[in-house]
């Protein structure tokens, strides 16, 4: 990937390589417990490759801990490409068509696009030794792995709404929006499913699982809900008081935001809190296949999961103590956590007719 290595990063590589050489001598290439005996040769081969190219939708800042831990442990450089969900998908299929595959792994929150890549043959199977430690819903045929569990929730402005007024359940939310129409008029925010892949996933998953989703959509429409293409954008408006409440946002971000932002509260429905997962796959013609495997194993390992959880992305493993994990998160959101399974179900709305129908219904409900 990187043709040009700056002087600074060259020195960095040299330094890490040196460190690793010494480290190797000291620990004689430790193979993690429970891993196959020949794993040492995979590590060796990965180190020879020297780089792993990651195409992702996750901001570099959020995964910096994971990246640093990986590079520190193995001395393998990460070429980190934050391309957004669509950008990552687009580059992978374009590169494959040109026979110029540069991506080794694709790590994205767009579960549907990732599953499409798998179905269309852009991914390759890899039986990760860490797979056994994942919940069964987070492993799709050893090809696509769930690496996080991120709840979908609500943020609100604490100056405008006191916590006790917030609805407890999904159904209560519909009533709440209806009953407070005057107060909330033009001050409700939600994800735009047309412009944001995440927004589409959140809403369409609700539509798959909740028969009353369209009542919610209608209630939001009656309140003159405004639509945004990012959770961060919605947070900005809720903190500033421009909006009072934002519905179906990425709750794991919100759990971090409320620690620092004044006026901001986070809330989850006790009966139903869906959660999506950032899913990772190895590309079919990955130029650094061994480094890719090592990276996937590391990301799913207890160490890697801890690094992610510390960065605010809750772990899929119950044995991770840093930050939140799938179990403690369930307690935090009130017991209604419903992770979206990594399976063909996420493809339901990739069907053009269904998708167009969904979006038309959505626009009708929102009165646009």
């Amino acid at each position, binding site marked *: *990937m*990187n*043709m*040009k290595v*700056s002087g600074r990063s060259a020195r960095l590589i040299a330094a890490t390589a040196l460190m690793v050489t010494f480290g190797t001598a000291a620990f004689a290439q430790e193979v993690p417990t429970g891993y196959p005996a020949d794993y040492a040769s995979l590590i060796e081969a990965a180190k020879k490759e020297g780089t792993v190219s990651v195409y992702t*939708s*996750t*901001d*570099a*800042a959020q995964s*910096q801990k994971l990246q640093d831990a990986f590079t520190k442990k193995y001395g393998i450089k*990460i*070429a*980190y*490409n*934050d*391309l957004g*969900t669509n*950008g990552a*998908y*687009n*580059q992978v*299929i374009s590169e494959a*068509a*040109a026979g*110029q595959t*540069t991506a080794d792994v694709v790590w994205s929150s767009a579960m*549907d*696009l990732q599953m499409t890549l798998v179905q269309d043959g852009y991914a390759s199977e890899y039986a990760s030794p860490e797979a056994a430690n994942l919940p069964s819903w987070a492993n799709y045929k050893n090809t696509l792995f769930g690496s996080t569990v991120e709840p979908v929730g609500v943020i609100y402005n604490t*100056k405008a709404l006191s916590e006790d007024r917030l609805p407890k359940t999904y159904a209560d939310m519909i009533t709440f929006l209806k009953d407070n129409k005057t107060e909330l008029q033009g001050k409700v*925010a939600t994800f*735009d499913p*047309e*412009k*944001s892949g995440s927004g*589409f996933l959140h809403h369409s998953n609700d539509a798959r699982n909740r028969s009353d989703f369209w009542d919610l959509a209608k209630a939001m429409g009656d309140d003159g809900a*405004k*639509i*945004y*293409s*990012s*959770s*961060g*954008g919605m*947070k*900005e408006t809720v*903190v*500033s*008081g*421009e909006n009072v409440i934002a519905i179906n946002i990425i709750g794991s971000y919100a759990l971090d935001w409320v620690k*620092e*932002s*004044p*006026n*901001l509260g986070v809330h989850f429905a006790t009966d139903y809190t869906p959660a999506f997962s950032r899913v990772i796959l190895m590309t079919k013609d990955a130029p650094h296949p061994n480094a890719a495997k090592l990276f996937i194993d590391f990301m799913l390992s207890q160490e890697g999961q801890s690094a992610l959880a510390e960065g605010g992305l809750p772990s899929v493993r119950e044995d991770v103590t840093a930050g939140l994990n799938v179990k403690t998160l369930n307690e935090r959101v009130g017991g209604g956590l419903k992770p979206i399974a990594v399976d063909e179900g996420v493809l339901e*709305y*990739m069907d*053009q007719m269904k*998708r*167009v129908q969904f979006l038309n219904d959505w626009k009708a409900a929102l009165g646009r």
Partner: protein
Amino acid sequence: MSTHAPAPAALTMTKAAAEKRYPARMPKNGNANAYRRIVIGLLAIAVLAPVGLIIYQSFLTAAFFSPRAKFGFDAYRYVFTDKNFYRALGTTAIFSFGMVAIAVPLGGLLAFLITRTDIKAKRLLEILVLVPMFISSIVLAFGYTVSVGPTGFVSLFVRDLIGIVPWNIYSLPGMILIAGLSHVPHVYLYVSSAMRNLPSDLEEAARTTGASIWQVSRDVTLPMVLPALIFAAALNILLGFETFGIPLVLGDPNGIMVLTTYIYKLTTLFGTPTYQLMAVVAVVLILITLPLVWMQRRLLRNARKYAAMGGKGARVSTLKLGTSGQLIALSIIGFWLFVSVVLPIGGIAVRAFVDAWGEGVNLWDQLTFANFDRMLEVPSLVRGIINTVVLSVFGGALAVGIYLLVGLAGHRNWGMSNTVLDYIVLLPRALPGLVIGLAFFWVFLFVPFLTPLRPTLVSLFVAYVVVGLSYGLRLLQGTLIQVAPELEESARTTGATIGRTWKDVVIPIVRPGLAGAWALIMIIFLREYATGVYLMGAGTEVIGSLMVSLLQTGAMNTIAALSLISIVLTGAGLALALRLGAKIHD
């Protein structure tokens, strides 16, 4: 995208005048025709490769590299029967014309005040009025939400004073006003250079017969600069059609959609990107541009009859404004600068140093450097800043060299190749940066000998040169045309070839102008954002495109910090430009 600031063209008079003095029929020998054709041919390839790819893509049923792609008009059928397309087209038209209705009169007025009257602080004003042009529209829009959004600090202040916030920037009129005010410099540039070349005897004659200053400007000056005004209006309509940042940030939440945000939506609407639909909308935008180029050429041809009034060395004297006139004029300019520069930059500056803002938030309590600290911890963001500076400073210099080569190829060139040049220059401007960036990404991916360049800054540089072409070339042409033809003629008559003439006469004379052009191109490259979105990768991040990718997750703290850095860098570039004596105006 709004990257392309309009050129300080207004070759209107000078070019025509030059054409008159310098015969169109040149001796075939030593006229560097081969050079001209080669350079313009190479440029045409660089421009037409991505544009051609987009046009080709629009006639396919799937991505051009997909085995399922078949030739067909399905994409056109979809777009032309989609009621959202027409809605977006209608909104875009209202937006563009509204913008022009604000920008053209104001820009014309500013040009008149600064070039034809004795307004105070002229030197300073000449620079200040251009500042809005150098802020990227995404930064601009973001800054406005913090200062004059529903809970912006200025809005809250006004609400405390009078009880209500009397404006709403999240409406079509709000967007039009903001876009209109920020496009005033684009009009000013064209009109002011036209006005500068007007002889003042006519105005003086009118004044001596007792006409008021406003009568003079209306009945004498206005008719003479009408072509420039019309052209500026047409150009701004085009700029309105490709504006992305303002509708994205201000229009989106309320569902106000324009063509560029419609294209953006097409990337996600069907789950997987539908390139053919994006391509169709891009083709529509190209088709809107072509008549504009045609019109520009016509205007330049007719401009001769206006230029005929200008005698050589006509002395330009200024109209006296008087005390109250000064006061009114300066207040108007001051208020406009406050709205279009102080408010957005103030908003960004505030946001960069706080973590939260708005109703019930005391900004002083929120004061922090954390946004910058955190940014510096992320290598890719730091690299982005470094890359942006490298690309602007060195890339900008290289770009000036390229534009000079192209400029020379078009210099005193009245042949067929010049017609080609006129048409290809404006093409990249017609396309949204996101689309042209995607096309370049494909070119670098699928053209075999180019593939090694894709993961380097070279790919971004090539795309930037093409995107900045219309601005950069006009800048260079403006400098070249100032070389008096007599100098070139005397070199030629003493037996120098045209190459020799350029090397020993033209280039030495324009050298000071090149330094200024370099600084301005630097600023244009600094504020570029949409073009790099698809091209940048690990190691080749640039600030503008990083902001677009961060916008998808909404990391506003980082975006604000990056925006402020980009503004500071732009300020430095502008200061440098002035030190180097950039001829911003002509």
